């Protein structure tokens, strides 16, 4: 009986494995955040190049990383992830080493954007958008903040109306910056200080949120939030009283990148796609519509000056951004970071 069962189990496994064989030719699969590129970008790309690309969405870096690690990259061709996660993909051997000859539009990038610390020379990633992390607030409801402590130790009237980013690294960065530490600090004593500061801050928080904080500002549910500059712009677009600022202690320089996966079965189409995105005209369209700065000089030079007037953070020069430190992959210390965040959330 046991042998019989085992035998059947093996048969079932074999059958399941057979299902693994690809049946249909799948389209070029691009995963990006929702609303992070032109709604018709895929269609125009398909029309222009005769490819059959498909866009899928991920809500967070971690979500797409989980999927990529589970499938060893299979099923995806191009993914948009923040730079530390691109580094992880590279370290895991899942990222394609880029052949620059196939990406002529790389020439459009700012020089600064080709020498970013996480990937000098764009070996495995191409910057898509960049910016800072600061405070986004309702200037009609709260006094102008100056410091990270305005968020972490809010006055009584603002207490209960603040949100912080839910993603491990940026959540910790708020504490690291406030205390004057590196955003890649791993020293246990210093990180314990960061943890204690953030645990205290949690008591005054409305929620951890990295998807709807600007909507909460617009509705008035929140009044002061930790935000990426570009997403604050969405709020500014709906309510002119919403304002973005970088605290005196500084910010991080975040870079969202495009990575082609080694497992891609449509490498040529994938190269064509990233090249298409880096086209001056296409990338300019992205900047003007997603309201994020793009590291593409040719594109930024063409951005409507009126837009920069409305969204001042769009006008920040690359040299100014580079004063801030980039989040880097911290390798084995990531586990300590996860633990710290668990400790913060457990309180």
């Amino acid at each position, binding site marked *: 009986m046991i042998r019989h069962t085992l035998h059947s*189990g093996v048969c079932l496994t074999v059958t399941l494995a057979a299902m693994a064989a690809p049946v249909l030719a799948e389209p070029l699969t691009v995963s990006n955040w929702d609303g992070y590129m032109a709604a018709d970008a895929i269609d125009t790309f398909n029309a222009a190049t005769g490819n059959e690309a498909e866009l899928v969405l991920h809500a967070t870096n971690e979500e797409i990383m989980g999927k990529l690690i589970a499938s060893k990259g299979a099923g995806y061709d191009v993914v948009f992830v923040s730079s530390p996660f691109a580094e992880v993909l590279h370290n895991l051997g899942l990222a394609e080493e880029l052949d620059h000859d196939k990406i002529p539009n790389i020439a459009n990038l700012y020089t600064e954007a080709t020498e970013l610390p996480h990937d000098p020379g764009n070996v495995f990633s191409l910057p898509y958008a960049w910016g800072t992390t600061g405070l986004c607030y309702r200037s009609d409801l709260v006094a102008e903040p100056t410091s990270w402590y305005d968020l972490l130790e809010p006055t009584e009237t603002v207490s209960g109306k603040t949100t912080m980013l839910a993603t491990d690294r940026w959540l910790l960065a708020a504490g690291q910056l406030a205390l004057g530490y590196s955003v890649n600090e791993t020293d246990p004593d210093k990180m314990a200080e960061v943890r204690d500061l953030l645990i205290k801050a949690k008591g005054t928080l*409305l929620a951890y949120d990295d998807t709807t904080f600007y909507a909460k500002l617009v509705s008035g549910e929140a009044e002061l939030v930790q935000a990426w500059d570009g997403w604050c712009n969405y709020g500014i677009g709906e309510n002119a009283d919403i304002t973005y600022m970088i605290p005196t202690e500084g910010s991080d320089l975040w870079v969202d990148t495009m990575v082609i996966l080694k497992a891609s079965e449509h490498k040529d189409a994938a190269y064509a796609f990233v090249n298409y995105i880096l086209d001056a005209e296409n990338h300019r369209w992205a900047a003007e519509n997603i309201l994020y700065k793009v590291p593409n000089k040719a594109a930024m030079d063409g951005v409507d000056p009126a837009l920069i007037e409305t969204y001042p953070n769009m006008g920040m020069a690359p040299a100014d951004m580079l004063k801030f430190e980039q989040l880097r992959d911290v390798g084995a210390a*990531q586990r300590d970071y996860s633990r710290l965040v668990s400790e913060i959330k457990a309180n």
Partner: protein
Amino acid sequence: MSTDRRPMILMTPAMLWLFGLMVVPCVLILVLAFFRRGVYGGIEYTVTLENLALVFDPLYFKIFLKSAGIAGLSAAIACVLGYAAAYAIAAMPRRHQSMLLFFAVLPFWSNYLVRTYAWIVLLNREGLIVNLARWLGFEGELPSMLYSEQAVIIGLVYNYLPFVILSCYAPLSRLNPDISEASRDLGASGWTTFRRVTLPMTVPGIATGFVFVFVLSIGNFVTPALLGGGQFQMIGNLVYAQFLTANDWPFGAALSMVLIAVMLGLLMLQAVVAERASGRKGAQNG
């Protein structure tokens, strides 16, 4: 019929399905819990006990206790409300009972996410309840009800209440009215009758309801994520995070083993409760 092999033929496909897609994967999780996580996620095939040890690490034990607290409170509230509802249904005329029960359980079969989402609409600071309060003339600031422990508990109770109503109704409807009548004839008050007769005989239904709400709550990750504003971690959220964000599959596997252990433990406890109650029932009948 004992030598008959025909039933085995009928059962085999389903048994194989359950074996291949439930037993084998669960055993796999069991094994996974004894391996080590690679630096960048993935699995290093070195046998270790550190994942299981980590479960009892003060930090994770604290999270465990906290989520057990939330789950226990939710289960207790659901049991009180559910028992009251089931008792009331059983007190209605027989011909209406199945209809009432049907409508009590109906929400349980609609989409879980939708039911949770409804509370976001009701509870948020600019939501329906606050607006209603303002409309009624309430002035001043109301605290945000959403993104709090209470919101998580309300969400859990709301979602699982129908289940408790169902599990409590079953023994209540089987209760022989003669027994409580006899108790009253012997001079016991209504409350005494309830406490000494009705309640003990229907305890197994409450126990079943409690166990299910507790287990479903402690393993839940959707409600804390949507109604808790990411500020509360249930074991379910921890497991979710290990698999989808921290990429620490072995630790996630160890945590889910704990979940299974808790569930089995509670089910055994419930079986004991049921056995005791049926023993008492036997004594009363005899």
